[in-house]
């Protein structure tokens, strides 16, 4: 038990178990339905040999990264404005509550029209996926700033602008960070949609295009890569947050459980 709860041991055991179940399932259902670990590995090797898998990972990561960063950069000021200005909030909230049920993929055609078939439209789709979640979390954070902090600052002589810069923004940092981290998850989720738009490469392209040729092994390769880079970048962001934002109350690098 002591040994089992030790993190690395258990993680390795878990993966061995998952792989075993997977292999058995593949044996039962056959490779077209469930490509087993070996078949998937072979598929991966095939893609690795000509370097395409690595370049796909690089390209998808780049798109996710840029879209996510830009989306967050836009979302944070918007969230701050919506949170601080009651009149804007009254207008924006019903709209946000309506639009949040519309998936990024629904915007493919429109984004194509607005941003063309190049990188822009793909990145815009990731931005869309990021935007609302960061905005909503920033907004929540702004509304959660303790009134006492604002009052204290005000009676210490801070102007409204100083209150925004020196109180509201730092107090909202943990919420922004949570939003940004959650948004990373949705960004990875949106990559398939983004790479449906005139893409010739990328993990989303791999997953989507492999459907046409019924290469379930490649679909598996794509899914696993997506999961893995998602997992590791999330950890990285978590650690960075803990290191850099400790002051602001970002104290845990554990994955957000929700």
């Amino acid at each position, binding site marked *: 038990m002591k040994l089992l709860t030790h993190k690395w041991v258990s993680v390795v055991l878990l993966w061995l178990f998952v792989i075993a179940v997977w292999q058995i399932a593949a044996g039962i259902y056959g490779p077209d339905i469930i490509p087993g670990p070996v078949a998937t590995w072979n598929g991966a090797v095939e893609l690795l040999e000509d370097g395409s898998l690595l370049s796909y990972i690089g390209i998808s990561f780049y798109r996710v990264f840029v879209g996510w960063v830009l989306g967050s950069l836009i979302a944070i000021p918007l969230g701050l404005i919506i949170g601080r200005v009651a009149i804007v909030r009254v207008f924006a909230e019903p709209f946000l509550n309506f639009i949040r049920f519309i998936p990024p993929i629904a915007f493919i055609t429109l984004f194509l029209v607005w941003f*063309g078939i190049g990188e822009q439209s793909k990145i815009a789709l990731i931005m869309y996926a990021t935007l609302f979640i960061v905005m909503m979390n920033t907004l929540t954070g702004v509304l959660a700033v303790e009134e006492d902090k604002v009052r204290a600052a005000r009676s210490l002589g801070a102007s409204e602008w100083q209150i925004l810069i020196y109180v509201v923004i730092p107090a909202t940092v943990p919420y922004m960070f949570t939003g940004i981290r959650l948004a990373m998850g949705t960004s990875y989720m949106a990559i398939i949609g983004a790479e449906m738009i*005139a893409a010739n490469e990328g993990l989303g392209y791999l997953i989507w295009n492999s459907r*046409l040729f019924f290469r379930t092994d490649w679909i598996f390769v794509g899914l696993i890569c997506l999961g893995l880079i998602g997992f590791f970048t999330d950890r990285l962001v978590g650690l960075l947050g803990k290191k850099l934002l400790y002051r602001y109350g970002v104290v845990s690098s554990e994955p957000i459980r929700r």
Partner: protein
Amino acid sequence: GCGKQQPSEAAAGKLSLTIADTVSNPTFQVALTEGIFEKYNIDAKIATFATPAEGINALFINQVNAAYGADFPVLNAVSKGEYSIIASTGTGLSEQDAANWKLFVRDEVQSAADLKGRKVSNFRGTFVSYLWDKYLQQHGLTSDDVEIIGQGGFDESYVALKSGEIDAVWVTGATLIDKFASLPGVHQLTDMSQTEVRTGGEIIIPNALLEENAEGVKNFLRAIEEASQFIQENPERVADIMFEKVKQPRDMTLADLENVRWSLQFSEQAYETMNKQKDYMVAEGIIQQDFAVKDKLRLEALKEVLPERVTYEP
């Protein structure tokens, strides 16, 4: 699990079919709605997919037991398993059919030679890559001379061509051709009849189905033939059916019917066309295991139902 047929039904010639269809094909929808399948003792279901390739894929997992598609996905499918081509739909092979694939280009492109270094659209999972290959070859270019942009739909191509993000795209379908033709700064450079490329359409089913219920398969072909006749005679009715079933706008259906008419057959040309495309696919690595197209043909049912339409001699 809707694609499994009972042996007892086979004895009676009754056939349970789940057909992989695409949104814009009226044949099966009409046969179902107008009771033609019923008349031929076929208990048919239609599963609608966005593209023929996805429909054909559903064969592999026993979700459907009949599918149709153009040469490209069909060849891809038969290369992988125990499936047979039982008939050609008779579309796409004539010069007139080929002329329905138009090449639209930006005005900067006035001849094939101008395509050098330009961005051209490839409709993913279709024969268009083959078409580009042959077309460019014909004009002394190769695929390396252009930049190929993979696309997933004509709406994408339309927007991209309009904004100049691609310079050339092959388009088919009456409505789409009108739309593309009316784009400012865009003109039609040529059509596919000017190339050696033809692309047919075929119907494929699992071999097992032929063995178990040969009579049923014949009835299936008879039903298709009757539906094709009906479609030619009642275009308005077909447009209504298509709107009701899959929301294809009526004018679009009517415009397509003028050009695309199913007429079951299997000709020497159909075989040749497939063979050429197969060679290309093998060379490009799209098909991994080479095979002989003639081994994948099972034309006995068609020969019996429409003997005069089978002109191919092995």
